[in-house]
């Protein structure tokens, strides 16, 4: 959670991420008639994860549209509507479903601006739920952050708390480019999904933007930098709190957006601490953790006092059963172990 948010004490207006997202969308819909929402079960039901609740009642079913289970059609339609002056906010219920409709996303939404030499803009927001931890098994628990972030032409944002969720949504809707807005189910504040309390924070009533490409240092520290997004930020903060009891001062960086990626903030933090742990609930190989580590290593490997560590989802499909799933998920303990590994790791041969 944002330090600057923490300081707001009086007049607190604590919202869940779900409500913060819905509020941002509603505010933009009020001021901009080109904004509309479509997706499965986003109207009458208010979204399976609550992030469109209340919109149908306020804006009616022309602007808040339940769709058939036809992701290829409505993602494509979002591209066409966005190219024609509208600003669709479209929901892919679980990110795991991207495989049925990805062409419209990565080959059209993401590339038409480029293909047209900048003459066609595709200002659409694709919001989609990510993450597991509640035994929803291998086709309903994935994060796939790197899958989206790897491919050019889309911005990718991943809020860790309601304050960011609102500001990032406002920025996403106002952006002239396609934005993939990935919200973690465990942070939504829907009781039935469990709820990470740290995600529900004060959210100002008025609309505000959070700029893309600016990571947040959500905890300052000097001994090690822990970099993460979404749910991982909360694991990291918990690990940092425990490490503090051991006398270790951990800095926690919430990337907030994967594209654009704020490499400078990460680099400067690691330059200060000399140590790096990257935490990610997405699959380990060819993913976020590799990119962050490579970013530091290629810019100046000499700032690393020890081999950086990753705490990521192993390269396995996500198992259903609780013991296996919990075994595989990142958690604060694994981050603490990673810190200890890092301290144990071979020191410089030059030292």
């Amino acid at each position, binding site marked *: 959670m944002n330090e600057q948010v923490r300081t707001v004490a009086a007049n607190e207006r604590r919202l869940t991420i779900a409500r913060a997202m819905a509020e941002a969308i509603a505010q933009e819909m009020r001021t901009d008639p080109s904004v509309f929402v479509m997706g499965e079960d986003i109207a009458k039901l208010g979204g399976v994860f609550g992030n469109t609740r209340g919109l149908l009642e306020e804006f009616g079913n022309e602007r808040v549209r339940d769709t058939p289970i036809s992701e290829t059609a409505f993602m494509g339609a979002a591209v066409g509507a966005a190219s024609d002056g509208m600003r669709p906010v479209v929901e892919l219920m679980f990110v795991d479903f991207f495989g049925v409709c990805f062409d419209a996303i990565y080959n059209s939404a993401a590339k038409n601006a480029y293909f047209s030499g900048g003459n066609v803009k595709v200002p659409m927001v694709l919001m989609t739920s990510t993450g597991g931890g509640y035994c929803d098994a291998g086709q309903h628990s994935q994060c796939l952050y790197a899958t989206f972030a790897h491919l050019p032409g889309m911005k990718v944002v991943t809020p860790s708390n309601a304050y960011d969720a609102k500001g990032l949504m406002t920025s996403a809707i106002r952006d002239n480019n396609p934005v993939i807005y990935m919200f973690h189910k465990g942070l939504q504040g829907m009781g039935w999904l*469990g709820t990470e309390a740290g995600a529900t924070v004060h959210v100002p009533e008025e609309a505000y933007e959070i700029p893309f490409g600016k990571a947040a240092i959500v905890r300052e520290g000097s001994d090690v930098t822990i970099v993460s997004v979404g749910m991982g930020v909360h694991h990291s903060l918990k690990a940092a709190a425990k490490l503090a009891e051991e006398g270790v001062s951990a800095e926690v960086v919430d990337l907030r957006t994967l594209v654009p990626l704020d490499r400078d903030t990460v680099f400067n933090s690691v330059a200060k601490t000399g140590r790096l742990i990257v935490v990610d609930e997405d699959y380990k190989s060819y993913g976020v953790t590799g990119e962050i580590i490579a970013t530091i290593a290629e810019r100046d490997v000499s700032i690393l006092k020890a081999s950086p560590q990753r705490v990521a989802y192993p390269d396995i499909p996500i*198992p259903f*059963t609780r013991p296996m799933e919990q075994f595989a998920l990142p958690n604060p303990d694994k981050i603490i172990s990673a810190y200890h590994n890092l301290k144990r790791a071979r020191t410089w041969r030059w030292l």
Partner: protein
Amino acid sequence: MEKNSIQEGTLTPTKEQKFWMYRNMLVSRFLEESIEQIYLEGKKPVFNMAAGPIPGEMHLSNGQEPCAVGVCAHLQPFDVVTATHRPHHIAVAKGVNLNRMVAEIFGKATGLSGGRGGHMHIFDADVNFACSGIVGQGMGPAVGAALSRKMQGKEGVGVAFIGEGAVNQGAFHEAMNLAAVWKLPFITIIEDNQWGISVAKSESTAVPDNSVRAQSYGIPGYQVRDNDTYEIFKVAGEAIERARKGGGPSLIEIETYRLAGHFMGDAEGYRPPGELDGLKAKDPIKVMRARLGSEEGLSDEQNDQIVAQARATVEAAVNFARESAYPSPEEALEKVFV
């Protein structure tokens, strides 16, 4: 569940077939009722999907039993069935190992997949049953199984069960066309329970009856009204027979009822008032019970015995699951590659 006693190729169910269907409907229903209760263990007073002996999403099939038994009455273990996120009734009727299925739903080591799959990923290779939790994605694999049988010259049809909402997914269209072009022994069963989560069929589907869509593939299309077990038995029998004889694919849409929410925890605010009560009054199990009474003279005592047997089957499976151990956590890393 004496599958072998089912007489193939007859379009009016024999007495034996009727009882086979009835027993399977009961087992399926009692299973769902059991799961419903157990699912809520640990989820009260706060409903948290992650808690309790059965965590995760839970899609019950109460009311849709006729689709499963009416079709599977014509199938043998070697036939291939793919199901959806709502698979239990079909799995029961297809003869999936009940103990191991329930253990899988509990996430136990004795489960069909050792707990890796869960309720949306029921796989039983012994009876050629598979699932996908992605809407429409059972279609291609069932077509592929049909292709495999045709190429190998081996017995067996491929049957894909999907919901009426899934028909608007591209996978439906592509698979139907492919099966038709290649004249494969393939049948699509559309369970039209009127709802895709909260979205009514009329709001998502441009035609009232998906059976007309068979015309797009030059194949027979059937529409079964009002969850009628016998009618399902009849048209499925016809379609499966034709497929076995090399006559190519068919499409069957069945008007059925979803007597529960889309998944457990669904408040069902989108249902028009009274709808559920109306459907419950037409509960297919009651209908079947009554038919067996009038047609086959099923007495209350006989019925009680059948009911008790079905309950016992389910109870045994639940006990098996409860008593089984969880797998060890590190097994998560196994079976990625085989």
